């Protein structure tokens, strides 16, 4: 008997080895993942709050209809299947049959309809569900989103933290969902992990949902999000093993240091849909040199992007030539990237009618930088533009509201900024270039006051084009025209990195980074 068992064990081991060549090893159940949040979330309900610190625990607490892996293909999640109607004006979702909320109530199409309505009414990204006129619920497990126009962005808007399915029986009690007491305490969700504790400035603790609708998952028993604001402390915590994983790291020196440690892995994979892009923004709407696109082009030629990528970002961020993140399938890299060319810059400035005066100066501009991390770029811009006769003054506004109100009220020449794509261009890209979105007092609207009817037209068409090929062609033209008009000069992606201990398997490296469900994550000793 024993021999038989041994033989069996051996053949199983051999089989495991063979399978192991194709698959990763067998997932380990149990364990507590210790990870981080860089700020305190206001609360944990992503239906009424955007942002990465709500999104990370939010994506564990709440399931969305769809999920994505790293290649931008939608996968079934709470919806086991989905289909567009032929005219692209309705989307039918077939929900998983036996899914339940954490309090045991079944998840039905009513909850889907309620979630869409709540998000539509309260979430800042109006373009996600703005064209959803109604949600029909023919039966418990079918929800049909009726649209006023075709809306391909819906597929990304139905994933991750953007469309959490929240329980109607809790949030539909008539209280304002934005300040609902259950947003931060006793949160009842639909996702792989249940709420245990949220202590602002300290931690969020989640535990395994034993009743999760995907059999056998999640693998982890618990997730502890420790709220650690200091980047150096987080990197020391990674290095001494106190933390298993940290996401959205972007201080390049700490990333460099961590990458030298053999027991941890550092990667920039996983941020394509978040899509953070650094750019130099121009106030094109005020009288003066910046209203002329030749001046904006000259500035782009004079600021050496290679220096920013290699010296400031230490080679840890990617070249971004357009407003669409280079990780997106819609990114078009064939546009002019404005490589350093001082002669061209000078020629363009002469042509625009700004000759050098006796002191070699053409005109003066200001850069108002807000986020302290963009200070090196601002100083570098000043030095670069001095070479072509533009006298730049750098003003520092590290207090966010001060900077935001200055920029959003169009009281600036240039600023360094970071703006996120949030998946589909309709959600996070259009807002920067849409002439209808020049709104005083609203930061990350079209604060450049850029207007081009052709761009408006292209965005309108691409926003409604269901055919992926045709859509990509429209966005290609969109990127070409923008690269010529240059309302902002895109330089690089923000160097967001995920850092994880070698014990962590299946870290969130899909397009939504830490805002993906962690049902596949497990811990394994090496």
């Amino acid at each position, binding site marked *: 008997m024993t021999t038989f068992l041994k033989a069996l064990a051996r053949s199983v081991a051999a089989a495991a080895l063979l399978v192991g060549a194709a698959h990763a090893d067998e997932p380990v159940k149990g364990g507590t993942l210790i990870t981080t949040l860089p700020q305190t979330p206001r609360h944990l309900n992503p239906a009424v709050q955007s942002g990465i610190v709500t999104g990370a625990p939010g994506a564990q607490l709440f399931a969305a209809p769809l999920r994505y892996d790293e290649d931008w293909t939608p996968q079934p999640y709470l919806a086991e299947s989905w289909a567009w109607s032929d005219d692209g004006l309705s989307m039918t979702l077939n929900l998983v049959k036996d899914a339940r909320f954490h309090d045991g109530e079944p998840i039905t199409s009513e909850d889907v309809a309620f979630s869409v309505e709540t998000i539509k009414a309260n979430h*800042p990204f109006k373009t996600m569900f703005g064209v959803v006129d109604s949600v029909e619920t023919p039966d418990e497990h079918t929800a049909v989103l009726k649209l006023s126009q075709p809306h391909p962005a819906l597929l990304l808007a139905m994933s991750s933290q953007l469309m959490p399915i929240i329980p109607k029986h809790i949030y539909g009690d008539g209280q304002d969902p934005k300040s609902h007491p259950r947003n931060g305490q006793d949160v009842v969700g639909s996702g792989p992990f249940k709420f245990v504790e949220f202590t602002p400035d300290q931690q969020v603790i989640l535990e395994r949902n034993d009743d999760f609708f995907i059999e056998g998952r999640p693998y982890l028993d618990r997730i*502890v999000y420790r*709220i650690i*604001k*200091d980047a150096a402390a*987080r990197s020391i*915590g990674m290095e001494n093993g106190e933390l298993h994983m940290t996401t959205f790291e972007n201080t390049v020196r700490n990333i460099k240091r961590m990458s030298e440690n053999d027991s941890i892995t550092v990667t920039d994979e996983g941020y394509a849909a978040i899509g953070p892009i650094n750019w130099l923004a121009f106030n094109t709407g005020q009288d003066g040199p910046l209203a002329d696109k030749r001046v904006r082009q000259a500035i782009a030629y004079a600021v050496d992007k290679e220096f920013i990528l290699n010296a400031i970002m230490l080679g840890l961020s990617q070249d971004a030539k357009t407003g669409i993140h280079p990780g997106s399938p819609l990114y078009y890299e064939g546009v002019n990237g404005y490589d350093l060319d001082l002669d061209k810059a000078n020629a363009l400035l002469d042509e625009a009618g700004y000759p050098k005066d006796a002191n070699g100066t053409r005109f003066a501009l200001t850069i108002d930088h807000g986020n302290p991390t963009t200070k090196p770029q601002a100083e570098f811009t000043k030095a670069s533009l001095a070479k072509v006769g533009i006298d730049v003054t750098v003003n520092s506004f590290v207090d966010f*509201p001060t900077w935001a109100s200055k920029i959003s009220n169009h009281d600036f020449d240039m600023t360094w900024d970071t703006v996120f794509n949030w998946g589909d261009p309709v959600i996070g890209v259009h807002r920067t270039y849409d002439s209808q979105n020049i709104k005083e007092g609203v930061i990350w609207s079209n604060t450049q006051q850029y207007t081009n009817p052709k761009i408006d037209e292209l965005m309108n068409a691409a926003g409604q084009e269901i055919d992926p090929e045709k859509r990509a062609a429209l966005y290609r033209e969109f990127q070409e025209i923008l690269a010529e008009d240059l309302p902002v000069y895109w330089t690089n992606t923000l160097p967001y990195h995920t850092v994880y201990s070698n014990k962590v398997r299946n870290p969130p490296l899909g397009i939504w980074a830490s805002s993906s469900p962690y049902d596949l994550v497990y811990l394994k000793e090496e």
Partner: protein
Amino acid sequence: MAFLKVLAQRIGYAVVLLIAVLVLNFTMINLAPGDVVDTIAADMGGANAELMAQIRAEYGLDQPVIVQLGRYIGRVLQFDLGYSYFYNRPVTELIFERLPATLLLVFSAQIFALVLGILLGVFAAQKPNGLFSHIVTLFALFGYAAPVFWTGILLLIAFSLKIPLFPVAGMRDVTIEGGFFPQALSIAHHLVLPMLTLGSIFIALYSRLCRASMLEVLGSDYVRTAKAKGLRPRDVVMKHALKNALPPVVTLAGLQFSAVISGAVLVETVFSWPGLGQLALTSILARDTPTILGILFFSALVVIVGNLLTDFVLRMIDPRVRGRG
């Protein structure tokens, strides 16, 4: 009786001071451009004009500043510090939740700095030009001169990374189960580095002052008398000299209370210590006016109480002060 009179007088001053703190801070915060709605919008990764106007109306931020100020002072007089925009909870509740952590940090750092500062000062005063005295001076001045967040990160690198003795952040290990003792031990374990960091600034002050004060006292007649009586040198220093050298040090420690609290803001951020300092930082960044004002109000209160306490300690150790008002 004289004591009660002094107390009443002090409390009177304190109330006036607190109201001044409120009005001044309220005005200053409102002078800065932008408001909490901008930061809420930023948190959300962008917002739209209607939503922002709606939130402003909900918080009463669309009213003139003077009306907002009047309403605020009115509420404070009813012991209501308002509602935090960011945390969505009453400010008083938030502050009382964070106060223990900060008090623990501030008091332990103060006591640590005082005890070590006095000891170093006393030893240094024995041989004012000796090697030990110079080393103490150098060490103390280093702690004083180094930016506190830098000292903190340095200690982290040394004692969390290179020699992993202490945890890197937080106040307790959330994975520890158990009753009072394991929890208290975990908190003490987490407290060491923040306490050393915050204390390091003040050791210099206290040790230098104690050294100077001791030198002065050691040269006085009664010390010579005590020595002449044949008392052991240790007794002379500890019983006769130190007692008289302490008052200036204690006075300074009391005056430093505000500095310790402002130092705590930085230390708490580096070590993720969940006290008032972190609350202050978060609410300043979020422009969460009611919370900022509440914290400033409480800090003023703590400083006032700290100064009062200093007075009483001085009365205890220095009989000469007792007679005066």
